[in-house]
């Protein structure tokens, strides 16, 4: 299956891109997707347990992904 990973702020700077298309085996979890991102150039900048959201809602890293999901990897927020 294919999911889209979105990167923001310092994470986007580290990986040099703001979105990555990932092809993952069926049953892959958020953790699996994060491991894949860490293999990319600059991916070591991602922390052990970053905040993530699936399709606009915060999610845990053990959640299984579905084809077409939008997985956002969210740096510490700093609004206001």
């Amino acid at each position: 299956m294919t999911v889209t990973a979105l990167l923001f702020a310092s994470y986007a700077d580290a990986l040099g891109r703001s979105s990555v298309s990932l092809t993952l085996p069926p049953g892959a979890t958020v953790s699996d997707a994060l491991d894949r991102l860490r293999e990319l150039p600059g991916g070591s900048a991602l922390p052990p347990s970053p905040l993530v959201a699936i399709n606009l809602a915060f999610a845990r890293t053990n959640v299984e992904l579905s084809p077409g999901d939008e997985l956002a990897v969210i740096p510490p927020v700093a609004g206001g």
Partner: protein
Amino acid sequence: MRSAIVTHPLDPAALTAEVANVANGATVVFVGTVRDMNDGRAVTGMEYTAYLPMAERELRRIVEEAAARFGTNDVVVEHRIGELGLGEASVVIAVAHPHRANAYDASRYVIEALKARVPIWKREWYADGERAWVDPTRAAREALAEEPS
């Protein structure tokens, strides 16, 4: 009740007018602005970016939560993104309620939840030319890392 993420300068007076209602006795308006100093470094400006659809959704939820929890529909919040100069407003929250305690508490609820949950990031521009993303969790993490194990 309304929330928005915008790219134009914010207008606190307009938001204040938006929550006006003769049933209310108290209006609290919070304005967050770009200041010239952070952690002892001179700042010359700020750049805000957002995961827009999720930020809009979280902000709308926060306003709904504040309305339900504190008993008023007169809650409006706008957050600006893009490049902001010193003194410019990044966020305005206007809340009105029949009674002041709830107006203050609802206002505080919105700004604290916004800072904790809304996917917005800011990059500070320093006087020395450097730019850095602000990480509100860094100080806490560094303190933890320094604890004797």
